[in-house]
């Protein structure tokens, strides 16, 4: 079984079409509604998704891990991480899964840097993304070209090993660090990202570093 996990926070406008686009490629779509104040849950249910709702906003990392817990319970063979804001193109899923299977990899990371399809803002491509790579290096993560890309496919082994404890945005680095820790075979795959809004700003980057540091100290 191939389960798509879509963490969503106040995405009522886009969640319905995202869920519908996913059904052509996966067996089941799980939307983790992270305490949205809008109609995200209703729209997702209307589109036939399974909706798991956080009553308190915990963050994207926590939402993904809730989806993981569900997928482990369903004995899923593969899980897909997919954003709720129409950034990604569902057409990338089938070739990505094929490549993961063909190469015998445990986890696949989407990347915006492998081809020219994504309209990435200049500051993000030349300043934030390289900074992110340095942070990942410092925190013992495997090196990928696009560390904070939310498009990932995990097989059963990766799903079992990767347990996210970083509730907020630092989970992206945590996943890479766990990939290294458990010697998971990983590959990268070009995906298209369409920018509707700017997404994460520099301040968000500082928050990630702070969360990672605290994670190291408190653990």
């Amino acid at each position, binding site marked *: 079984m191939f389960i798509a996990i879509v963490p969503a926070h106040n995405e009522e406008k886009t969640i319905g079409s995202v869920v519908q686009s996913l059904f052509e490629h996966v067996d089941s779509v799980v939307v*983790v509604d992270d305490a949205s104040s809008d109609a995200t849950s209703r729209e997702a249910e209307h589109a036939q998704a399974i909706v798991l709702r*956080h*009553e*308190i906003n*915990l963050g994207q990392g*926590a939402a993904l891990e*809730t989806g993981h817990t*569900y997928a482990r*319970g369903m004995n899923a063979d593969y899980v897909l991480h997919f954003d709720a804001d129409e950034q990604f193109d569902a057409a990338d899923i089938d070739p990505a899964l094929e490549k993961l299977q063909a190469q015998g990899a445990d986890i696949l990371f989407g990347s915006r840097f492998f081809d020219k399809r994504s309209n990435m803002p200049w500051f993000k491509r030349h300043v934030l993304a390289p900074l992110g790579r340095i942070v990942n290096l410092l925190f013992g993560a495997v090196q990928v070209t696009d560390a904070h890309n939310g498009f990932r496919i995990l097989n059963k082994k990766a799903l079992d090993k990767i347990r996210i404890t970083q509730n907020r945005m630092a989970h992206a680095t945590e996943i890479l660090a766990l990939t290294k820790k458990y010697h998971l075979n990983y590959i990268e795959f070009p995906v298209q990202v369409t920018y509707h809004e700017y997404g994460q700003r520099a301040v968000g980057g500082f928050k990630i570093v702070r969360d990672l540091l605290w994670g190291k100290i408190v653990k």
Partner: protein
Amino acid sequence: MLSVFQVVFILFALFAIVSVVNKRRESSLGPKGMLFWILFWVGASIVVMWPESVQIIARRFGIGRGVDFVIYIALVIIFFILFRLHVKFEELKRDLTKVVRDKALDK
């Protein structure tokens, strides 16, 4: 003759001890916590009333001035409490995550 600072500090320490006892009555503070905080405020009051008293201890630790000694100790305690608080906060966050997640999955 008491200085203004000494009077204000003693009054504040009395107020702090009263609220410590009240918190204990409301059971939001354990017996150990109550003892620690009462001793803390009594000790601080002694130091404020008789600053020379710490001079002797400070010398033993190789610190010239009693006041410096008090500030060093206070900083160490404050940072330790800050650390403890943060760990506690992280634990709370983890517990909260677990409760919210279990509830989300339990449908």
